[in-house]
């Protein structure tokens, strides 16, 4: 990656945990069963305590929900300002470069220890790479990849998550896709 045109601030973020989301949400069975209902996932590991006991000790949350446990409540008592936005580091990068638009292009998730009711996670958002500016069919833009490391409250690795974005455009249009 060429870094010659990167602002010093952004260059200093590469390889660093720029944003940390620290145990803001408690994993709850009713929450994950609502997600199961949305995607019609009847896996008994998520629904049936007796079945889950033999495999996982107790019911677990669907691994596919991994990113959700790192998203803070949209409102909470005492909240001031906007708080941390989901994928805050992505928004910090957009603001640093002045791109109003961003789309997710690729996602990769590696699943490790499961989470159960009562667990919570700490998430570090690390900037892996930023491209030079290039002309895309949507206008001038850059690609960047953010790595997220999720750990439970007992420090066990819950998962690794990488998201690649294309951010682009002028201030005249706004588009945000996830």
């Amino acid at each position, binding site marked *: 990656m060429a870094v010659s045109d990167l602002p010093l601030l952004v260059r200093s973020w590469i390889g660093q945990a720029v944003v940390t989301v620290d145990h803001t*949400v408690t994993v709850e069975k009713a*929450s994950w069963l*609502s*997600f*199961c*209902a*949305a*995607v*019609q*996932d*009847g*896996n*008994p*590991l998520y629904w049936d305590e007796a*079945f889950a006991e*033999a*495999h*996982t000790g107790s019911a677990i949350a*669907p*691994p*596919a*929900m991994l*990113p*959700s446990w790192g*998203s803070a409540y*949209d409102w909470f008592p005492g909240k001031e300002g906007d708080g941390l936005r*989901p994928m805050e580091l992505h928004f910090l990068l957009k603001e640093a470069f002045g791109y109003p638009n961003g789309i*997710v*292009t*690729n*996602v*990769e*998730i*590696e*699943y*490790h*220890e*499961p989470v159960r009711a009562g667990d919570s996670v700490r998430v570090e958002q690390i900037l892996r790479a930023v491209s030079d500016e290039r002309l895309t069919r949507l206008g001038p833009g850059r690609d960047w990849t953010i790595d997220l490391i999720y750990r439970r409250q007992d420090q*066990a690795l819950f998962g690794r998550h990488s998201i690649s974005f294309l951010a682009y455009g002028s201030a005249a*249009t*706004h*588009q*945000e*896709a*996830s």
Partner: protein
Amino acid sequence: MTLQPAVHDRLPTRRIGVTTKSIIMGAATSRDWQPLHHDVVWAQSEGRLPNIIMNNYTQAGLISAYVTDWFGPAARLGRLRFSMRSPICPGDPLELSGVIQVVEPEADFLWVSLAIELAVAARIATTADVRIAVPAVGQSPSVWHRSGAAWRP
């Protein structure tokens, strides 16, 4: 469920009628409040999209359910990688299909790699690669007991 998964085995196609309700349910329950997943006016005016679109968390959930419904709940998802090529909107007749590409024995279980497609008619919306651990035989120890260095997804 295939008892002995083999390369080139195809999973049965799953058809899902995507609705406004299902997209909003998926976004809300995955804690994703970006307006393009629930606000059609915003999606069309600001997002320049045809309608609200399914979020990537919901797509991950659909892919996970599709694969574990086939291999059974004893199977354990190890890795999911996907690329979103075009949006999935209300009214889309979504079809999930999958084919086994690699089967690798490890200890007392198998690593199975699959290529998954989410298509709307002839349009490919999302492509995915899934790596999942499957017990080698019915009496194999649960793969869920593996952790640390014994779990390498």
